[in-house]
């Protein structure tokens, strides 16, 4: 080891990713494409919510979807049935997308003619929160069966999101899920977050979500 010399680096590991994400946002702004990063744990209803959202907005917005998974194409197939363009991104073992992988996904999707690009991130409440993807807004879904204590367990995810959809409220009566205490826990972490209780199965509450998203896309692409 004697020939080795010590070199001080003192560099934040995610600094490059943050810079790359900022750069990607700039390009999206120029191209007038809104990128939404949708996150949740597995099974919370990302794909179902997305299908409903596409059906509601596809006449008013040109939409494309990137489905990120460790493997398989099932989600991209589901999305493609709605008639919008969808690509599957395989993360090859990684639990999240970073800005560089998002850029590659956007390139294969093609964004020139899109008003709204949606990134359905890998189902996971931990890792995707750490990496800025370059998205304009971050949205997460927490579903009733997961429990109202999740904000206590995964604080970072709740801290970085602009909107929380509390999904599966049609089955609230079967679970000990206290919406009020869940909302209080989330607000303690993130006073500015918008919280919208919905059921992606029945459609209850989703209008408020469509309105929010449509308005955000309009503002960004103005």
């Amino acid at each position: 080891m004697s020939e080795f010399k010590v070199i001080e680096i003192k560099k934040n590991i995610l600094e490059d990713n943050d810079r790359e994400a900022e750069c990607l946002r700039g390009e999206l702004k120029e191209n007038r494409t809104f990128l939404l990063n949708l996150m949740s744990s597995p099974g919370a209803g990302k794909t179902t919510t997305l299908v409903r959202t596409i059906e509601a907005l596809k006449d008013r917005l040109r939409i494309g979807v990137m489905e990120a998974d460790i493997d398989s194409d099932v989600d991209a197939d589901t999305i493609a049935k709605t008639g919008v363009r969808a690509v599957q991104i395989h993360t090859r073992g990684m639990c999240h997308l970073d800005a560089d992988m998002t850029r590659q996904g956007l390139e294969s999707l093609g964004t020139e003619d899109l008003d709204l690009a949606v990134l359905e991130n890998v189902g996971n409440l931990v890792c995707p929160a750490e990496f800025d993807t370059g998205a304009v807004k971050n949205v997460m879904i927490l579903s009733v069966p997961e429990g109202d204590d999740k904000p206590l367990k995964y604080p970072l995810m709740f801290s970085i999101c602009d909107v929380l959809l509390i999904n599966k409220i049609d089955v609230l009566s079967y679970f000990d899920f206290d919406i009020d205490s869940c909302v209080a826990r989330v607000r303690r972490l993130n006073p500015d977050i918008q919280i919208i209780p919905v059921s992606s199965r029945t459609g209850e509450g989703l209008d408020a979500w469509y309105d929010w998203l449509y308005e955000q896309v309009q503002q960004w692409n103005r």
Partner: protein
Amino acid sequence: MHELGIIIHVAKSLDAVAKENHLTRIGSVTLEIGEVSGIVPEYLTDCWSYYRKKNPLTTEAELRIETLPATTYCEACKKTYPTVAHGKQCPHCGSFGTYLLAGNECNIKEIEAC
């Protein structure tokens, strides 16, 4: 496995540093990881053992991890406290108006190289 993502970012950074400083071999890499960064040091080491072999520059590089303690600041009473023991709520005055001062780090501190 977001540890793998972090290791890939570390490898990319090291590659850039090596090019800048005309380095060909790295003997060790020291990371500073905050106590509440959510990063598991053991996984990081495992991912490094796998990923370092992908580049001759890092094949023999040993990974060293230094843990940095987490401290939270209370805006209400202006005191600090250890985050891991008390979480979001200030143990001095009970306020939730607190924020993390340190403990979320994820830095490359230094390397040994030639």
